[in-house]
């Protein structure tokens, strides 16, 4: 009998080293739960996230990609997240233009003190992606 693989969404979260990664850490040490299928990738600053990273994440099987950074104005490097904000706005708008579901990508600002917010955002995002189902429009079958 053919084995039916149960669908569990894979979520990639790019978290900046100074705020969001520390926020995730706080969520952990506060024993707040968020889905285990959120895979965190630590980046020095949200500005480090290249559009290619987002696409590569989808290629390697992500069903949703979320970028977290310091709140605007709080960037460790003064202005990194402002640049990232413009870039991601344009990139996400382009993905939408290409017909890729706009709910699959998101930007959230999470500070180091917001462990609860981090857990909430991830729970909510995982729920959205779960409802959306598998990423079919930007998948690469060789990586499945």
């Amino acid at each position: 009998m053919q084995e039916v693989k149960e669908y569990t969404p894979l979520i990639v979260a790019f978290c900046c080293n100074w705020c969001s990664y520390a926020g995730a850490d706080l969520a952990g040490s506060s024993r707040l739960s968020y889905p285990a299928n959120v895979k965190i990738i630590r980046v020095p600053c949200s500005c480090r996230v290249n559009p290619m990273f987002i696409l590569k994440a989808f290629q390697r099987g992500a069903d949703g990609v979320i970028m977290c950074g310091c709140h605007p104005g709080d960037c460790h490097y003064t202005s990194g997240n402002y640049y990232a904000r413009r870039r991601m706005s344009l990139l996400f708008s382009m993905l939408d233009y290409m017909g890729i579901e706009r709910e699959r990508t998101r930007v959230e600002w999470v500070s180091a003190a917001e462990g609860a917010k981090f857990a909430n955002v991830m729970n909510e995002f995982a729920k959205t992606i779960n409802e959306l189902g598998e990423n079919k429009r930007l998948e690469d079958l060789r990586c499945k």
Partner: protein
Amino acid sequence: MQVSDIKKKASEMLLSGEVKRVIGWKKGEFDYDLTPATFESVEELEDFVYDGFCGANLSKYLIKESKKEGKTLVFMKPCDTYSFNQLLKEHRIVRDNVYVVAIDCEGKLDIDKIKSKGIKGILSVKEDGDEVIIDTIYGESKVVKGEVMLEKCLTCKSKEHVAYDESMAQGVENVSLDRFSEVAKLEAMTADERYEFWRGELSKCIRCNACRNVCPACSCVKCVFDNDASGVSAKSNANEFEESMFHIIRAFHVAGRCTDCGECSRVCPQHIPLHLINRKFIKDINTLYGEYQAGADVDSRGPLTNYTTDDLDPSDIFGGNK
């Protein structure tokens, strides 16, 4: 402004030694297959042409030519001067080594559009006001110019030059369509329709890289797609993902620097409307960060190398889809 005047100007400047070389368009085997070329002597200028098929943007050639010894004379149409300015802003061209002569452009012709009208055995093509007269081995045919113009010329952004050392242009009236109407039409579709549209278009891509190689903005010394470690260098698109990825990244890398010269669509052998991807970025930049025309000046900051503290968040732009 006559072609003979342009040729005369070029030969005068070559003879006087003021310039070492001239960049222009060179006659090909047929009337319609012209190539951009460098002319270094008056004899070579015999093959110089300027007609309805000179759609090629010459500004990118200056990156290499302006670094050579001596001055380079270049003839530029209005839209080429925007690309030229943008390259100056990025410090890619040595300005002192270039002599720009502005010339008029009344919209260039698309040979594929002429051929798709069933016109075969073309011997010569002449423009006469709003008409194009095509002499073929089967006799003469006439078509309305507006029907056989290049896509980029139908939506021409300006007939005014933004940079030149000397102008031979007499000015042409600009009667063009709204360049964002096609983008707006796509935006009005549902996500599924857009997905189908782009799948249909992008699946035609053969990854010849012509769009990348011709683009004046796309002139990095080492391109991301030439990086062996990227997994996508110098090979055809393996699947749907790579087709989308190549075009999204190509357009993103020139976002905010693309002057909308339309060369990408002109050279695409598969006729993919690549300008619609670039224009989407331009349209978004205009609506989100204020009207911006890349190449209109040489000192302003580009939209992606700039920010304001009250820019919208991506989630606000998409109407709070949380």
